[in-house]
């Protein structure tokens, strides 16, 4: 079975500071990993994905994520947070081994960036 955990319900960071939103996963094969963001009253927007190759993946709005196979983690990062980054962030995984076509999502982390 595929699963993903986001251990923090909320992350608070000051504008201009670096931010990290944590995600760990569990799969039997190789993972396909995704990050999505949800702004208030909006659907989910794709930020970035890791399929294979370079462990550091760059995405939209200056976000990046680091794949760490030994720690089964895929943390989302940004060097300098903006107030406009305040939103709900979801990590998701698909197991390449099972062939299940649906993504499994984490419980979400609310990011609050203070001015």
């Amino acid at each position, binding site marked *: 079975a595929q699963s993903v955990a986001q251990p923090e319900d909320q992350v608070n960071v000051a504008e201009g500071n670096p931010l990290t939103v944590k995600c760990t996963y569990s799969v039997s094969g190789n993972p396909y990993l995704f990050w999505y963001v949800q702004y208030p009253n*909006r*659907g*989910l*927007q*794709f930020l970035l*994905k890791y399929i294979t190759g370079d462990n550091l993946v760059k995405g939209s709005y200056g976000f990046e994520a680091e794949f760490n196979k030994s720690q089964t983690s895929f943390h989302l990062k940004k060097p300098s947070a903006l107030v406009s980054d305040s939103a709900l962030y*979801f990590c998701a995984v698909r197991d390449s081994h099972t*062939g299940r*076509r649906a*993504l499994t999502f984490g419980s979400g982390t609310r990011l609050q960036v203070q001015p």
Partner: protein
Amino acid sequence: DVKVTQSSRYLVKRTGEKVFLECVQDMDHENMFWYRQDPGLGLRLIYFSYDVKMKEKGDIPEGYSVSREKKERFSLILESASTNQTSMYLCASAPWAANEKLFFGSGTQLSVL
């Protein structure tokens, strides 16, 4: 841009009513999905479909059914709505390949009274 359109943004229904949630995508995607989103629980998969007339149960299919008569349309049906089905419902579509991202609609906030 891919567009996934959900027919209603807000819906209020009564307990016991039959409810239809409609979703249409315009990019000829093979895969379509229904998730529900609840605070603290994230997104949970209800049903998905990888082809016309094909469907598979997700993690929480009880109380729901789906219909996919045409490739672009995927309907979620609540046979007899209950208050615990009050939730945000999100439809998504994706191409066939397993490493492709999902495209989401704006969601339908359903309240069952």
